[in-house]
């Protein structure tokens, strides 16, 4: 057994810490790197008046460093300024705090839909015959499944049904669409099954079983880093798909906020929404790093339980 490798978890922990600061920095740098006046880019004179006032109010006239420092300092205190165009005058923070729990619930629910068959498949409790059905459902893009779900809700409860049970139904269907579309669940099932069954063939597992040890306790430390990396990718896929599904199904989440901000050129809203997404991505990186740290620590400090 070699020395424990702390490199990957350390890089991931550092990335998780830096990501929420790097995303606004990259956006700011891009804004200033593009040809033309930053105020004119985010508020094109053809469709937007009062550019100079907005530039002053948003510290765009203070240069990239001034803008970034001011924005980041305010954001860390929960102040994102007011929406410019999407919901004029409304504090962006208010929009953010309203939509964040909705997207979190949506993604967590989708992950549960996706993880349940994957775990069953990994444990050998899901027959392979079901793979074809999941694969066929996964061929459909999220936009198609989402509009079918939206049609179902609107026919049954009306186009303006955004409260009470219909609102919950929209979230439930959105999570199901996210989990099924673009091959999310079928790929999760197939990957989890492949990783566990390939590792299950390893010689050490047979020896451990002969020694009377549990197969899963020997298997898990070796497959967890791979599975954690894979599932982080899946969760990112869900976060990405949430934008489309939320807008089509009328779920008032972070994705819808980001979309409306982009469509209406509301840079303040887009920056704040992107920042919130970067925090979610950072949390996923952190979770993966913690799994890797846990495994490395187990290998380092309790080596008798891990046979590699």
């Amino acid at each position, binding site marked *: 057994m070699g020395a424990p490798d702390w490199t990957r978890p350390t890089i991931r922990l550092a990335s998780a810490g830096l990501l929420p600061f790097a995303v606004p920095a990259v956006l700011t740098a891009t804004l200033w790197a593009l*040809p033309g006046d930053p105020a004119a880019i*985010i508020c094109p004179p053809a469709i937007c008046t009062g550019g100079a006032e907005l530039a002053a109010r948003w510290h765009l006239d203070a240069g990239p460093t001034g803008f970034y420092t001011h924005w980041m300092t305010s954001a860390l205190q929960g102040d994102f300024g007011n929406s410019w165009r999407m919901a004029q005058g409304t504090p962006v923070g208010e929009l953010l705090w309203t939509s964040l729990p909705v997207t979190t619930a949506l993604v967590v629910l989708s992950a549960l839909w996706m993880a349940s068959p994957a775990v069953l498949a990994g444990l050998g409790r899901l027959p392979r015959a079901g793979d074809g059905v999941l694969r066929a459902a996964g061929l459909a*893009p999220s*936009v198609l499944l989402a*509009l079918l779900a939206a049609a179902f809700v*609107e026919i049954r409860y009306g186009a303006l049904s955004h409260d009470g049970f219909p609102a919950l139904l929209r979230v439930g269907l959105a999570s199901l669409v996210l989990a099924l579309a673009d091959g999310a669940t079928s790929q999760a099932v197939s990957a989890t099954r492949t990783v566990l069954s390939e590792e299950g063939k390893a010689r050490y597992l047979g020896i451990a079983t002969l020694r009377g040890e549990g197969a899963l306790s020997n298997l898990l430390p070796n497959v967890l880093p791979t599975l954690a990396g894979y599932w982080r990718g899946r969760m990112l*896929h869900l976060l*990405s798909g949430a934008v489309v599904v939320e807008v089509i199904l009328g779920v008032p989440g972070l994705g819808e906020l980001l979309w409306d901000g*982009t469509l209406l050129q509301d840079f303040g809203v887009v920056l704040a*929404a992107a920042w919130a997404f970067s925090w979610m991505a950072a949390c996923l990186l952190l979770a993966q790093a913690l799994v890797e740290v846990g495994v490395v620590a187990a290998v380092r400090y309790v080596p008798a339980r891990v046979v590699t």
Partner: protein
Amino acid sequence: MNRGTALTVASAGMAALLLAGALAPEFLPVPELGTRMAPPWEAPPLGRDDRGIPLHLMAMQGAGIVAGPALMAAVTTAVCAGLAGWIRCQNLPRLDGAIQAVGEVLGSLPRLVVVLVAALLIPPSFKGLMPVAVVWTVLSLPAAMDEAAVAAARLGGARFVEALRAHGFSQWRIYGIHILGTNLRPILVRQAAEVASQVVFLEIALSYLAVARNEPSFTHRENLASWANLLYLGYTALLGQPLLHALVLAISLLAAVVGCAHLFVVAARAR
């Protein structure tokens, strides 16, 4: 299905998409309200929309929007993934490590979020699907490159190349035939087909969201109709409008893209 048939059908499908895009009119004809919502048997070949505009012209314009960017995405993905496999065979650990690090950073954010932020920052004169597709392709590259590099490493990497060199094989035969042509081909084609179809679906999704909000899409000019317009018409059919033919057409186009991508993968599979 054998590989030859799959390649023929997939190539024909792709050629049809490119041809339809190339022959698409720049502007849609003036609406003919007398023929609005006419089904295909009343207004051949594919019927009319809710303003009497022929659906086949909308489908052709939609093909024109996605054909170029999807092709660019496929070629870029295949070339970069092939390059990653080549680098792994060259024993260049620093370059390899740098590529992996960049890939890790690029892959740590949700792709659509990055695409939307990029769409906001792209100057109006550059608005279109191509810059959006470039961003999407760049974000998709790390996974494709990583898979190709892992496959090359599994093959033996630099030791494999050395062994073939010892047999007296030429550089072209080693890299062009054995590594890219034989071993990496299924991965390169699959990744290229996946990213290309993702670009098509991305356009449909972004345009659909804009159409649904009655706003202009940032993936194409306002004089063009995307496949998302057909899908939106199809959606109204689900709500009771007599536009079922639009829904069938939209789903058929999506199925054709999925089918084409799948057939390319089948055609390139390992023996």
